[in-house]
């Protein structure tokens, strides 16, 4: 799992990067969320939870939201994804992609709950329709690209028994 840290750092940098002509309200995919859901799908809720907490800590460093908001949302999503996907992941390649979209929406709802719990106001309806839904579509797109890479990586560090015995 430690080998995923550079990918998480890259994910945070992609999400926070400003480029020439950037705009404040532009929708962007949640790359770290896709990595957490993908890894939880492959490795179970324990590693999903831990990777979510680490990814959340890194994201918290780049956010002006109260410390812990991202740890809460990504840790929860990592654990739930691992539990829910344990039996579904290998049945269809579309399932992790759909799961990433759903996880992005769930992540938005968790952020809203956590922000409101810390006394912040969130414009829910506008954010949900203009930011969370497009973000879910983009995150599912990122999952379509990243999940095969994660699976290949997971097989490399944890090869099938037959191969490892040879």
């Amino acid at each position, binding site marked *: 799992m430690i080998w995923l840290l550079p990918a998480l750092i890259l994910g945070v940098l992609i999400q926070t990067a400003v480029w020439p002509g950037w705009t404040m309200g532009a929708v962007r995919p949640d790359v770290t969320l896709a990595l957490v859901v993908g890894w939880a799908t492959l490795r179970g809720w324990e590693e999903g939870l831990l990777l979510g907490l680490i990814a959340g800590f890194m994201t918290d460093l780049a*956010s002006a939201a109260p410390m812990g908001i991202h740890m809460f949302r990504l840790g929860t999503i990592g654990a739930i994804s691992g539990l829910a996907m344990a039996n579904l992941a290998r049945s269809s390649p579309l399932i992790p992609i759909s799961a990433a979209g759903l996880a992005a929406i769930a992540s938005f709802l968790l952020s809203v709950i956590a922000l409101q719990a810390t006394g912040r106001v969130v414009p829910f309806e506008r954010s949900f329709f203009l930011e969370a839904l497009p973000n879910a579509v983009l995150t599912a797109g990122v999952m379509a690209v990243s999940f095969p890479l994660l699976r290949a990586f997971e097989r490399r560090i944890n090869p099938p*028994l037959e191969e490892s015995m040879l």
Partner: protein
Amino acid sequence: MRARQSIPGWVAVIGILIAALFVAGPGPLREMEQIGTRVISPLEFGVSRGLSGIGQFFETVQHASDLAAQNRQYRDEIDRLQSVTVQYRELEQENRDLRQLLGLRDLAPPGSLLSANVIARDPLAVMQSVTIDRGTDDGVAVNHPVITWRGLVGRVVEVHPKSAKVLLVTDVNSAVSARVQDPSSRATGVVRGTGDGRLILQYVPRSDPLRTDGLLITSGIGGTFPSGIMLGRILQIRQKDVEVFQEALIEPAADLRNLERIYVLLRAADGGGASAEQLPQ
């Protein structure tokens, strides 16, 4: 058959406890945040600079044919600006003399504006905030106002040695005391962000006249923002018969959707009381 070697559940539970300590516990664990920020800020700065460089390179290649013509224009412009600079120096001297005459020297000390670059934006879409490449090492502190030459951008909400986080005025959790800049009306109210890049002026009594296209400036009430910084222009006035107060939709003066170079107004939050006289408006 796969030999899955996942970590045990108790390790995950310990992870949750450590995370809870991070959130709840001040003290040594908070130091981890400082260390983490020290690591991630240079990376954000590097990525921001790298992307900017790549963008500029492609832009240069794209507009190569226009460059020669632009170059001629710029030479003419330099000649013109040199003459303006001479005039400016004269005016600066005159301004200095007048300030000394009025006893305003201490209100607008030299070096009260610190230039900064935006190096990152918030990963959470609902948060309207940016990270800048200046921090406590440069004298930045929480609540320092941040401006561009057009007007108010926001205030510093979190500061680290090499970076700081700025909450934009367009965030729904931002509130600034404002005043209408109009000789016929000195109406005051509170400007809040709407979350969609605009502002809303609230708590203005219906008896106070507002007009579309009127300008809003900071009132200085509350002490966080000095008075006289441009906030925006009134787009639309909303009045209801049953309500005591009226509201107005405001277009921010600063281009908050595309921030690059901004200025931190030092000393204002420390009670230095920098006045708007030295601010770009």
